[in-house]
């Protein structure tokens, strides 16, 4: 059981949870995630570790309300307990110093991007971050990202904040303006797909962090399989980050819909 120490609402649908998990706080690295189960009847859902305080023994999770499980978690408050939590899972991000990093975060994907941006900055890189969302309310963690970026560009679909347009519009502007050595893309699959297509055009090495459907998170079930460079890999143990130019995003998007009918039913039952 892991206690929620603090809950911060970012918007109606996005919140940060600071959770007591001393072991995980000590072992985790940027790019790692946890799998948790809110209650006895709950499913096991993966969430990225957005930050950690090894001294206090807490980790940060940023959650977007999607369906039943994320909503159940969302309803919890300070002092409540999460039934099970296991981690840190996945391979840590390969942090190095290629020079200039372009970090593209879409929606709640900004949360997992935060520790990666921080680590790249600390490693001495120039970091340009692009935060993209449908509208102003969905832009999260802006201040935190600013702290570790040389520049932050905000893009919204409706123009309610920053520049109107998609993440790729902002990214292309940067790429044309200066040399970008490496790119990271984290967000909805479509967003990562188009970011990847763009950087492929400019031959910029790109990492994408995938949000495949998972059950155990230990390599045991294969629910999280993705095609990378024509090979089937498991997101939970081989990823979640992969060379974006090798990822079959269309297959990923198809697989994310694998339980759509069942999830819809569950959601209707829950509401």
């Amino acid at each position, binding site marked *: 059981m892991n206690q929620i120490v603090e809950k911060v609402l970012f918007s109606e649908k996005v919140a940060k949870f600071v959770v007591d998990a001393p*072991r*995980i706080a000590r*072992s985790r690295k940027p790019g790692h995630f946890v799998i948790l*189960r809110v209650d006895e*009847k*709950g*499913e*096991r859902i993966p969430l990225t570790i957005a930050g950690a305080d090894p001294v206090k023994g807490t980790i940060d999770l940023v959650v977007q309300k999607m369906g*039943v*499980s994320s909503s*159940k978690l969302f309803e919890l408050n300070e002092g409540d307990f999460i*039934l*099970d*939590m*296991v*981690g*840190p*899972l996945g391979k840590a991000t390969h942090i190095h110093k290629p020079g200039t990093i372009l970090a593209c975060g879409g929606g709640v994907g900004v949360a997992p991007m935060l520790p990666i941006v921080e680590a790249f900055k600390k490693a001495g890189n120039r970091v340009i971050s692009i935060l993209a969302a449908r509208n102003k309310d969905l832009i999260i963690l802006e201040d935190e990202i600013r702290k570790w970026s040389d520049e932050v560009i905000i893009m919204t679909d409706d123009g309610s904040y920053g520049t109107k347009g998609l993440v790729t519009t902002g990214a292309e502007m940067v790429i044309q303006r200066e040399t970008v050595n490496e790119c990271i893309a984290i967000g909805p699959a479509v967003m990562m797909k188009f970011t990847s297509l763009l950087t492929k055009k400019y031959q910029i090495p790109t990492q994408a962090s995938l949000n495949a459907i998972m*059950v*155990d998170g*230990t*390599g*045991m*079930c*294969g*629910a999280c*399989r993705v*095609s990378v460079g024509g090979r*089937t890999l498991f997101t939970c*143990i081989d990823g979640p980050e992969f060379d974006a130019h090798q990822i079959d995003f269309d*297959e990923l998007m*198809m*697989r994310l*819909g*694998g*339980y759509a009918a*069942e*999830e819809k039913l*569950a959601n209707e*039952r829950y509401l």
Partner: protein
Amino acid sequence: MSTNKEYLRIEREKEWRTELRKKIANKDRTAMTRTRMPELDPFIRIRYQDREVNSGLTANQAQLEAARCLDCPTPTCIEGCPVSINIPKFVKYIEQGSFLEAAKTLKETSALPAVCGRVCPQEKQCEATCFYTQKMKKDPVAIGYLERFAADYERESGLMSVPEVAPSNGIKVAAIGSGPASLAFSGDMIKLGYDVTVFEALHEIGGVLKYGIPEFRLPNKIVDVELENLQKMGVKFVRNFIVGKTASFEDLKAEGFEAFFVASGAGLPRFMNIPGENYNGILSSNEYLTRVNLMNANKDEFDTPIIKGKNVAVIGGGNTAMDSVRTAKRLGAERAIIIYRRSRAEMPARIEEVHHAEEEGIEFLNLANPIEYFADEKGKVNRIRVQRMGLGEPDASGRRRPIVLEGTEYDIPVDLVVVAVGVSPNPLIPSEVKDLKVSKWGTIEVNEETMQSSIPELFAGGDIVRGGATVILAMGDGRKAAANMDEYLQKNR
């Protein structure tokens, strides 16, 4: 071995055994027919995921069956049991009506008799080498049923003995994974006075016994009773803890753990790498069974979703395939088909499970292999293309090698496919521990006599050493590792 034979002889010469032997003439014993296991009607049982198929022998049936056993001077049955249970001794206790003594006899050797009585492939082990099978060409003594009977009797009597535990020696040891290998190891180590902690990655203890083997074959409560017993003896269980991730071996050493038993299983599912295999509705058996057995996805009030197929194909011929296809039937499949590339004779599944599957209306498409999957516009599988196979010369495993019959492809409509073509060793530990010697198949290499790995304080056993094997072999490894770890620790402190 000689001391063992000597021990068996002494046991056999005890008065109660000689008396019992005299009671019924051997020709009368051999004239009796093997008791049939009472079981739930197939039409009823296919509606319930959680009702056990075999309902167990009555005391009367068990005693009759036990009377068939000839209490052989050279009990060949024991040679077929991987952990050499003293079979005639426990069987004769049943004949005599001393059921608790029978259970105690089992526990001298086996940590989980109620489990092994249910899931051991007896027809390939103890029952295959029984005098009846070998010399008389008759049905063997139902050793598995009797083992289950004795263990169940003890559990249900409420008189389950909690074994005696030596005074604590304060030495901390860890077991990694909580499957049968680990449970057997922990039981022995706690008895020897060690401070034992079991770390498990999942939120439930039991390994494959919990997340793999379904309730209709092995009810969870049977495993739970064993776990409670271990807990009473002082074994500590830590869930949601992945050794190598949550904490490293170095961290655990710093916390005072002096030796480790790695029993992390063969968790990695294999796929066939054929076109279309990543379509939705194509799952590994591990995923399918985990969703149902661990996550209760078949019950509406649980959040984990499951695809309830109407036309389900399960690829493979092992226990995992049988468990998956029978689960699909229970979740409402109209057609549940096993697709297996060899013939029935080569199926690695327990014979009993194949029988039960047949009774339940499972279709068997033997000598056929999938070569491609097709899907609808949303990427949901709707067709499977199979190719007929023939059988060639025997291969390294002694089974006849399947050969492709060209031009025999045809399609079968499906809406769910479960791939059960085997598992590979869980790569987590081998990849986290630098100097650990690993075979080219990814199994941890150990000294077979001691179960010690290339790292002296690290022992290993079960499926992580053998690849996919059996419960009883995993348990045997656990016990062997315990004995040798004890010796190692006593010598090296």
